[in-house]
């Protein structure tokens, strides 16, 4: 019999979770770089969850928006305007608009076609970034980014303190927006489309429009995650756009649990910590076990970490 939590208890748990994340700043002062990376990966995975877990769009090219956001923020800084928040806003708007335009091809297509279109767009964008060496630095990456202080007051320091706090605040703010979105009538409509598209048509729902918005929102947030990476590491590499990164974020999300709001965050923490732990071993070793793990997670069908937890603990329904 699953343990039932009252709704208030669940909310308290959420607050505690974020306090614990914030507290990691003091507990692991020498691992701030890793912690910042985890937060960025978490935001990226949450963004993917909107498209994949809620809207049901199968994509293997989400890194396109992550990388696009990273390059946008990096290039803006190099072009002479290194104010961090403007960079985030640019990434958000640019990725949202590009995704909205691309979504025409994606929302009506079957799963295989969605997969192919997202892979193909990813490959094209990587190649463009690779060829446009004068702008993007090509395979050397975009170097020499130097950000202005956050809000004109907080310099990015060598120890990554500002980077962590800045990332934490941005990730939390966007997470609150996403959380609100999924509790809204629109969020319910997304669950409806994911649950039974045929019925949504019969209810008169403009299904394609709803999905296009979800894809754009998802991409915009992925863009911000990429921009955060560019600003906090002051470097953008081609790998930010690559299919490897698209696959990694998919793995992170599935590891945590899709369609569960916190799945991306939990997945990012576990994946990054484990990856960091095994970083000294050979990459083949990591790849082998990751592969076996993926096969196992599908065969066992656990619904990720949160899926497993939800069988033990239930919350009251609204």
């Amino acid at each position, binding site marked *: 019999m699953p343990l039932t939590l009252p709704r208030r208890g669940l909310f308290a748990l959420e607050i505690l979770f974020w306090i614990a994340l914030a507290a990691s700043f003091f507990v692991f002062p020498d691992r701030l770089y890793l912690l910042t990376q985890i937060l960025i990966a978490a935001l990226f995975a949450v963004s993917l969850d909107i498209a994949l877990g809620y809207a049901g769009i199968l994509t293997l090219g989400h890194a396109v928006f992550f990388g696009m956001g990273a390059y946008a923020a990096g290039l803006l800084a190099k072009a002479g305007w290194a104010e961090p928040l403007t960079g985030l806003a640019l990434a958000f708007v640019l990725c949202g608009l590009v995704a909205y335009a691309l979504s025409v091809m994606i929302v009506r297509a079957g799963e295989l076609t969605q997969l192919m279109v997202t892979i193909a767009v990813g490959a094209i964008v990587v190649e463009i970034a690779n060829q446009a060496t004068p702008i993007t630095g090509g395979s050397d990456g975009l170097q020499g980014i130097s950000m202005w202080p956050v809000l004109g007051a907080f310099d990015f320091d060598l120890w990554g303190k500002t980077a962590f706090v800045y990332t934490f605040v941005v990730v939390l703010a966007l997470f609150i927006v996403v959380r*609100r*979105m999924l*509790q*809204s*009538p*629109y*969020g*319910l*409509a997304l*669950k*409806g489309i994911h*649950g*039974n598209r*045929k*019925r*949504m*048509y*019969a*209810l*008169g*729902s*403009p299904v394609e*429009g*709803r999905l296009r*918005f979800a894809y754009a*929102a998802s991409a915009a947030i992925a863009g911000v995650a990429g921009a955060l990476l560019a600003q906090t590491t002051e470097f953008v590499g081609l790998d930010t756009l690559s299919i490897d990164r698209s696959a990694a974020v998919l793995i992170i999300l599935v590891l945590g649990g899709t369609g569960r709001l916190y799945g991306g965050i939990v997945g990012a923490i576990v994946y990054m910590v484990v990856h960091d732990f095994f970083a000294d071993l050979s990459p083949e070793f990591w790849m082998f076990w990751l592969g076996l793990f993926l096969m196992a997670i599908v065969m066992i069908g656990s619904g990720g970490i949160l899926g497993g937890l939800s069988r033990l603990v239930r919350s009251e*329904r*609204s």
Partner: protein
Amino acid sequence: MTAAPALSVAGLTVAFGGIVAVNDVTLDLPVGARHALIGPNGAGKTTFVNLLTGTLKPTAGTIRIGDEDVTRLDTRSRVKRGLTRTFQINTLFAGLTPLEAVSLAIAERDDLAGIWWRRLGGFPAVRDEAEALLSSLRLIEHARVPTGELAYGKQRLLEIALALAAKPRILLLDEPAAGIPAGESREVFEVVDALPDDISVLFIEHDMQLVFRFARRIVVLTSGSVLAEGTPDEIRRNDDVRAAYLGSTHV
């Protein structure tokens, strides 16, 4: 002058490749109608409903809602004009509760479902209406149970609740009692019977007892064409219908 029928269909035809599934059907559904659409399996009944809702595009013919030609409009536009349906096979949201599902249907009807910046809880009118609708269908005690865990008969009622949430003027019911044991199917039809008089209803049903009890007019479809149309008494006496469809069944 009589008022325009709620729904009128003229010469409606659809062919898939060489097969004519619906052939030159002409039919009026007056305001407040309780029409039954009967016919053997494969007669084209569900295809006809799919044409009416815009899921399929006709090869020829017109569909009008009131005075307006909707033949070229998509499903959404027709729903907005008051035409909704239920499905023969449960087409529900297994993961949502009935309360959530009906709230969603109401939100879509009122164009609130695009709102992403406010909580669903911030729309008490939607919730109240959903609860009232579920009460009227005696589903309220199941309102917070995930749909997938509901008994089959309750799911059939939820099918109707979702269609009613759109506040339809025309309601198409595709075998609303399909799969329910005979004794319980009456409950579904009592819901249909209790609908307000300004809703026009067309229902597909195989159980002749239910048809003759609840329909005011009956349309018989065979091989995609209308074989006969009339009151239950006329259909009962119609020799063509007896020969072609009812066969030796005593009714």
